[in-house]
């Protein structure tokens, strides 16, 4: 692929990367994220999974941090460090999967609503606005309470409730792009809908979608922890939300077991903050209006 269009895009990407590197917050977020993802993927290799089993737990319940258990133990005598480590896998998996679903629906709806005129786009816009104002968490709670409990239920519940903001963004961007002369030229040359969307609209919309995606991952991770905290998560796997749920329901919080509370919560904050920083940095790089003020 060495067509001029691709060469131009590659140069643009290199320029963007150079600008992104200049944003210290965004770069720091990216490094933290990379480290967390690598650690989470390698978890089965560097830690012993059997420590997650309630029956074979070796420690005494609710032990404060010590040399043996760096972050103390939970109500079942399991290492909090190990639980937090493994919780990252579920949180990241749900966060990414829900985001893929959400961004896919949002991009599809946004492009279709902007590209096609007439009643289909009016209906889509109306539906988007409806879901945009609806409290998405309440909707996600409703969905996951009626479906069978499990990771994919959570993914579905978050994915199908969080797409409207992406749809609005993509629609606005598609409208600006479609008003440009080169789209008219492509139409005059006989380009069909598939050609226009695939060759012209999508490549121009994608960078903005990318910035938006990183922000969606952050909110998806918070949504996952909230749903697990409310007892709607997968009962068989450890996630940060379910750890916090046990901490409250078992009375560990009222007993003052701060070591049980801090690690999962801080993990959520660090990971969500990193995604937010990267997302904001990308937005600044990609949005000329924000850049002009600098």
């Amino acid at each position, binding site marked *: 692929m060495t067509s001029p269009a691709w060469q131009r895009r590659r140069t643009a990407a290199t320029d963007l990367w150079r600008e992104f590197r200049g944003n210290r917050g965004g770069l720091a977020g990216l490094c933290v994220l990379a480290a967390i993802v690598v650690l989470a993927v390698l978890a089965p290799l560097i830690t012993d999974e059997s420590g997650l089993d309630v029956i074979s737990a070796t420690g005494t319940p609710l032990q404060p941090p010590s040399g043996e258990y760096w972050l103390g133990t939970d109500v079942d005598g399991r290492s909090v460090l190990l639980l937090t480590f493994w919780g990252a896998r579920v949180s990241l998996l749900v966060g990414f999967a829900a985001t893929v679903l959400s961004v896919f629906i949002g991009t599809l709806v946004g492009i279709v609503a902007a590209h096609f005129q007439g009643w289909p786009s009016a209906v889509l816009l109306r539906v988007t606005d409806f879901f945009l104002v*609806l409290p998405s*968490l309440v909707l996600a709670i409703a969905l996951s*309470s009626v479906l069978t409990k499990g990771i994919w239920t959570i993914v579905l519940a978050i994915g199908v409730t969080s797409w409207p903001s992406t749809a609005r963004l993509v629609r606005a961007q598609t409208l600006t792009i479609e008003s440009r002369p080169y789209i008219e030229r492509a139409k005059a040359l006989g380009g069909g809908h598939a050609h226009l969307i695939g060759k012209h609209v999508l490549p121009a919309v994608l960078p903005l979608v990318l910035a938006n995606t990183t922000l969606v991952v952050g909110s998806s991770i918070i949504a996952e922890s*909230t749903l697990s*905290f409310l007892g709607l998560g997968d009962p068989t796997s450890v996630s940060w939300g379910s750890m916090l749920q046990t901490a409250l329901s078992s009375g560990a919080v009222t007993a003052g077991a701060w070591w049980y509370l801090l690690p999962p919560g801080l993990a959520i*904050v660090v990971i969500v903050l990193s995604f937010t920083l990267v997302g904001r940095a990308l937005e600044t790089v990609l949005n000329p209006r924000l850049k002009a003020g600098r």
Partner: protein
Amino acid sequence: MTTSTTGGPPAADLDERRAGTSTARFVAGKAGGALASLVFVMVLGFLLFRMIPGDPVATMTRDRPTSPEQLAQLRERLGVDEPLWRQFLDYALGLLSGDLGTSYLYNRPVATMIGERLWPTVLLVGTATVLAVALGMWLGIRAAWKRDSAFDRVHTGVALTLWSVPQFWLGLLLLIATQGLFPSRGMRSPDLPEGFLAQTLDVAWHLTLPCVTLLAVIYAQYMLVMRSSLLEEMGSEYLTTARAKGLRDDLVRRRHAVPNALLPAVTLVFLQFGMVVSGTVTVEAVFSWPGLGLLTYDALRGPDLPLLQGVFVVLAGSVIVMNLLAELLYRVLDPRVRAA
């Protein structure tokens, strides 16, 4: 606008009347849209809690032993053996007459239970929103006016961090950090003190932690929007004019920049209402604040589908009404929208 400059009083009169009908049309259009959304909420409530579960009775009793008689009774009461259109008709007519069905866990009318729990939530959400708006806007204005100053950096950083914090975790942290200083659950002390003032103070004492938790997460949004909204105005030429007139910096900000930047932030207050409502569910669950959020949390244990359905319809409905208010308010506040 254009006719009034050319003609005398009759033309101005005509212009005013035209503005009147356009306002009426605008209000009617928005109200119609909101009404359509409310109908959509009604349908969604039915879809979610009746159709998606397939067999609602099986869903509700999945975690508890139930005798065949109880099951039959429950099926009878919910009417799940009737055809779907019949069920929907019953549900819709009941909803319109204020009947939200009967709770499965508590065996009481859902509408009555929601009525009891409504005011604590209104109190919590109202207090937290008012405080968050005041704090967020004040900080946002200060941060934007001195862009990239230490104040701006620190407060944007704090707001972004709080924005990344799950509300319930912050609540748990506050609980553990203030051990014993504030009540950990409920809205009133079991031994209620005498007198109105003492009772109000008691409620305020209980309100502190849930309110601070909710406030901490939502003020960040207001601050960041206020900040970026003011930043967009900062380059405007009318500010240079105001400065050139010799106005003090403080006056330029208060009289010229802030009023123009306020609009997006004001509408955001209403638009974010859905997010605040979502937040109350977890905050109320942590502090056992006896509002709609705790009711949702308790209903999840069943899951008590009629109760969840009722809360869902009420919460979603109120968000849509608030949104309608935001759109109407925006028109009152922004002359540009009024003219268009």
